């Protein structure tokens, strides 16, 4: 249940992302608005990439969590098999 990406790797990734955003901030640009939009989009893209890694690292939680539908379907099939035996005097589980 623990994460597979070590804390050190996370630290390196976040440090690199911060350094890249910092480098982009010091770039010269004549139009400040377009530069602000560029930095904003770049930061959003890096954040999305890192958050996707974080989400995939924990498959049973977050937005991309694995569904328990397969187990529900299997339980329904087992229940049908149990119910099919009831007319012959067999007890269904509680």
């Amino acid at each position, binding site marked *: 249940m623990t994460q597979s990406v070590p804390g050190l790797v996370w630290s390196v990734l976040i440090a690199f992302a911060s350094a890249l955003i910092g*480098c982009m901030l010091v770039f010269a640009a004549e139009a400040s608005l377009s530069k602000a939009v560029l930095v904003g989009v770049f*930061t959003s893209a890096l954040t*999305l990439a890192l958050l*996707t890694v974080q989400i*995939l690292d924990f*498959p049973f939680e977050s937005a991309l969590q694995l569904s328990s539908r397969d*187990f529900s379907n299997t339980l329904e099939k087992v229940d049908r098999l149990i119910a099919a035996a009831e007319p012959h005097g067999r007890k269904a589980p509680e």
Partner: protein
Amino acid sequence: MSYTELGGLVVGTGFAAALICALLHRMVHHDRFRRYHEVGYAVFLQLGVIFAVLLAFVFNNVWSEYNVASQAVDSECGSLHGIAMLSDRLPSPARDAILNDLHAYLTTILDREWPDMQRRHESRAADARFQSLWQTVERGRYRPRGQPDSRSAAEPGGHRPSKP
């Protein structure tokens, strides 16, 4: 983290960075930015390549493990369905015992283990239910067609697998 929270975080950090950039432009003169441009551009390219390679390796790793977890769920469901189908052909006492234990195990998975895993915990209850199911299979008396009454090949108290 839901999709809404994810989107909020992504958009929020983008807006925050854009705001910082706009504030920097108001506070710092353009000429000062120009002095760092040459160095900043070179460092940006170098760091960008390293970051991209590192991110690609990490992403590949977590994506592979995500698929492994997904396949483990599929495999376990298929195996449990196989147990149910095979036990359905057994005579009544063994059939009922196995199906009832299977029902209890699946219910425990859905009600206890899945929420526990969402909280990054293991479920001892599901493990205990699986051991119970295994012991039921071990103890069962099976009578295949055309053969006299015989016990399972697995000896009681022998190898007990851990939960898949």
